[in-house]
């Protein structure tokens, strides 16, 4: 499609790559080329075919048709080991690390011919210094932050001296300061001639980092451009293929305090979780409170203590002035406190059950779907249909299993289920995680509408752009501690980074 003229000096070319799965063509005739030493962005919504494409390059998936070349010779990796041997490395969005092992042991496990531990530790130190990625090879991975875990994955790749490094959503787990460190590393790599294929949905980052962008929509390359010459909005519209709806609201005067936590402490129920430490917050009627922070800093625990799945050991939680710490999740729902956890499959929804049954899951009390213990299936199905219609959930009907929906559609269903119950307080964790741009915009709009109608809304999210867009006040979780909330108006990136307890300044310098 493009770049034919620069194929001669290209590091890698893709020509007509096609891959079909039953019922869907994930990639259709995808062609582009990568120059040595460039950062090339791969842009697209969820389901656009980005993952399938990089899996083909990394040897995880075999294309149905098309050719790839690497350094001018044919490149057909049969498995990831072959791809690595040819100089292609990949950092996945979800890390494959063992919490109980040390950094060096984890890296050795991912290598095809690992040297002995002491030699490896030495090389890890070398690489980590050379590229400004501070990392102690002897530390246990379970104790590392998400940013440090990512460094383990990156260093594992760098030890192979790759010619092409593929990165899938690398900044979603990082603080702004850590993103700076990462970008410095990436720029150093490209200056040495390594090419980087960079997948992200954070458009500002792509504009700051990448020289070329290939945009995929429904498996087809729809455009290529220089992202530095486009605005973030233009890029987003290229991805969606439509004009983008930006959430809007009229600022309203916040009312009285709806939910307050004071001095809440709770040990995490899971072994590698984060304990909540002396968390205090207040959210008022008609207000959206945004809680930022890198994943794993107590977000799940904060939601659990508010939803009633876990009890605070110290401190108090009050809803409209009444202490609710001892109440069960259902009793809290009855009083108007609704929540939506981050994990859709298996936490906020049961994947193998139908949408009707999932509507019952949290709707039973407020929607009166149970009569003296007996279920009112007709009423429940009507409620499910109401959610599907009001929130534009794409599904053949309420009898379909929740797990058969795409992530974005299921998330719309989950958020819709809570919003339609007219909560006084709604707390959501990562409401648009893994959701395509159009669905994310409609979810944000529904949260704003809810606040406008007088509900108190807390949004816990890693997506800072999202929080800046919809919240009135902002705070951040760091290692289970909550910073003092401040007004979102005029908040700078540096201040946000400090609240998130970001990387220390000496690390940036290193």
């Amino acid at each position, binding site marked *: 499609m493009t770049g034919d003229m620069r194929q001669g000096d290209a590091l890698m070319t893709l020509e007509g790559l096609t891959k079909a799965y*039953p019922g869907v063509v994930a990639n259709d005739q995808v062609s582009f080329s990568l120059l040595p030493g460039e950062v090339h962005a791969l842009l697209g919504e969820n389901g656009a075919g980005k993952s399938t494409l990089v899996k083909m390059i990394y040897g995880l998936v*075999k294309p149905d048709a098309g050719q790839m070349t690497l350094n001018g010779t044919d490149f057909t990796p*049969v498995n990831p080991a072959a791809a690595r041997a040819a100089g292609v490395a990949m950092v996945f969005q979800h890390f494959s690390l063992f919490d109980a092992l040390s950094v060096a042991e984890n890296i050795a496990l991912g290598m095809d011919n690992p040297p002995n531990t002491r030699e490896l530790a030495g090389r890890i130190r070398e690489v980590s210094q050379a590229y400004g990625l501070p990392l102690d090879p002897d530390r246990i991975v379970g104790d590392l932050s998400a940013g440090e875990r990512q460094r383990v994955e990156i260093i594992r790749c760098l030890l192979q001296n790759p010619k092409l490094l593929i990165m899938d959503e690398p900044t979603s787990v990082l603080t702004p300061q850590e993103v700076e460190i990462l970008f410095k590393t990436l720029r150093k790599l490209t200056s040495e001639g390594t090419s980087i294929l960079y997948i992200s949905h954070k458009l500002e980052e792509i504009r700051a980092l990448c020289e070329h962008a290939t945009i995929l929509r429904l498996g087809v390359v729809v455009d290529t451009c220089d992202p530095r010459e486009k605005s973030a909005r233009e890029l987003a519209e290229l991805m969606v293929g439509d004009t983008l709806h930006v959430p809007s609201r009229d600022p309203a005067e916040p009312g009285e305090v709806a939910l307050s936590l004071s001095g809440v402490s709770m040990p995490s129920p899971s072994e590698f979780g984060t304990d909540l430490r002396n968390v205090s917050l207040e959210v008022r009627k008609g207000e959206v409170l945004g809680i930022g922070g890198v994943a794993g800093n107590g977000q799940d625990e904060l939601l659990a203590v508010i*939803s*009633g*799945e876990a009890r605070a050991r110290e401190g108090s939680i009050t809803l409209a002035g009444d202490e609710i710490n001892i109440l*069960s*999740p*259902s*009793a809290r*729902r009855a009083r108007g406190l609704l*929540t939506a*956890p981050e*994990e859709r499959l*298996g*936490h*906020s*929804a*049961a*994947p*193998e*059950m139908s949408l009707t*049954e999932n509507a*019952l*899951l*949290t709707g*039973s009390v407020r929607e009166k779907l*149970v009569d003296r*213990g*007996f*279920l009112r*299936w007709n009423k429940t199905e009507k409620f499910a249909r109401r959610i599907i219609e009001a929130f534009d959930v794409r599904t053949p009907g309420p009898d379909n*299993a929740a*797990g*058969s929906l795409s992530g974005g559609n299921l998330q719309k269903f989950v958020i819709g289920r809570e919003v339609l119950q007219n909560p006084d307080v709604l707390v959501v964790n990562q409401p648009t995680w893994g959701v395509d741009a159009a669905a994310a915009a409609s979810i944000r709009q529904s949260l704003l509408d809810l606040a406008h109608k007088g509900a108190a809304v807390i949004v816990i999210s890693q997506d800072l752009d999202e929080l800046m867009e919809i919240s009135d006040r902002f705070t951040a979780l760091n290692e289970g501690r909550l910073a003092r909330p401040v007004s979102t108006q005029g908040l700078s990136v540096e201040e946000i980074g400090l609240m998130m307890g970001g990387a220390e300044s000496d690390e940036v310098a290193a």
Partner: protein
Amino acid sequence: MIRLEKRPQPSKFWGALTPVLAVIATMIAGGILFWMLGKDPLEAIRTIFWDPLFHETFGPYSRPQLMVKAGPLILIAIGLSLGFRAGIWNIGAEGQYIMGAVCGAAVGLAFYPSESMLIFPAMVLAGAIGGWAWAMIPGVLKVKFGTNEILVSLMLVYVAENILASVSQGLLKNPDGMGFPGSRNFRDFPAAHNTDLIAGTGMHWGVAAAFIAVILAYILLTRHMLGFQVRLTGEAPRAAKFAGVNPTRLILFCLGTSGALAGLAGLFEVSGPSGQVSIDFNAGYGFTAIIVAFLGRLHPIGILLAGLLMALTYIGGELAQLMLGLPGAAIQMFQGMLMFFLLAMDMLSHYRVRWKTPVAAQEGAK
């Protein structure tokens, strides 16, 4: 080359068909087994599956026996299926069955030779409480200390067996039994005897209770909040907690119900078909019911059918021992094979089987 592809959601069609396929596969593999034992495989299969129901001579004797054997299997399996659906694994129904029989019989024998109408209901209650209490041991230990209910309930079977041996030679021994182990026979104690409701059909109170349990379990699972919570806990435990299900209460409910139903089955057996508390009174119903529960897909109607089928293999197996001289162990193996094939065939409901195209097969062979 055969390739397996995971289905987006488990197929309901194959879910219903796999038990049938498992039965057919068991017949084929069982036939081969019988052939290797030097028997005519077709005749052996016919003796096990056909003759008990339709043979001129054996049929009239075997058909009531079908009810007698299926009753306790269904009753126990219904209780187990509730727990299995919620991911709570009570493997010790055999022990709860014994304890139900011992407690219920003890209450009856204590009042010998009273003719009060209240004795049998009191025995039924005592039987249910006995089984319930025995199942509460793993329940409470799990809730309080996080012990594994599989191990605790299973080990308690052996404790119950020893208690059974002890009481049949001691506390409950027939004073007029001339020193032989075993209690009085309930046939000689009309007020406490669990007799056929319609003479000659094998339909005793236990069979009636099994049918009632099937209906109640069906209503519970499809129409009641508690049944929904049971299913939700099994499908997605975190979602259940999020929805407000109290795990402690659910564990105790599931273990308690399955224990009480197993205890009832034991009581109905000891006061009816078996007639007395004896050292080897238990016949393994508590374990076979696990197969019945899974063969019936943990669904009440399925369990009803599976219980009848399993009862048939018991009776047919006895007939085959008698007529063809098949060893008793062969029939146990037959039942084991049924479970094995069922679990193996489950793959069909979760995966799609595809034959690779020749080109892809070549690449796959590399």
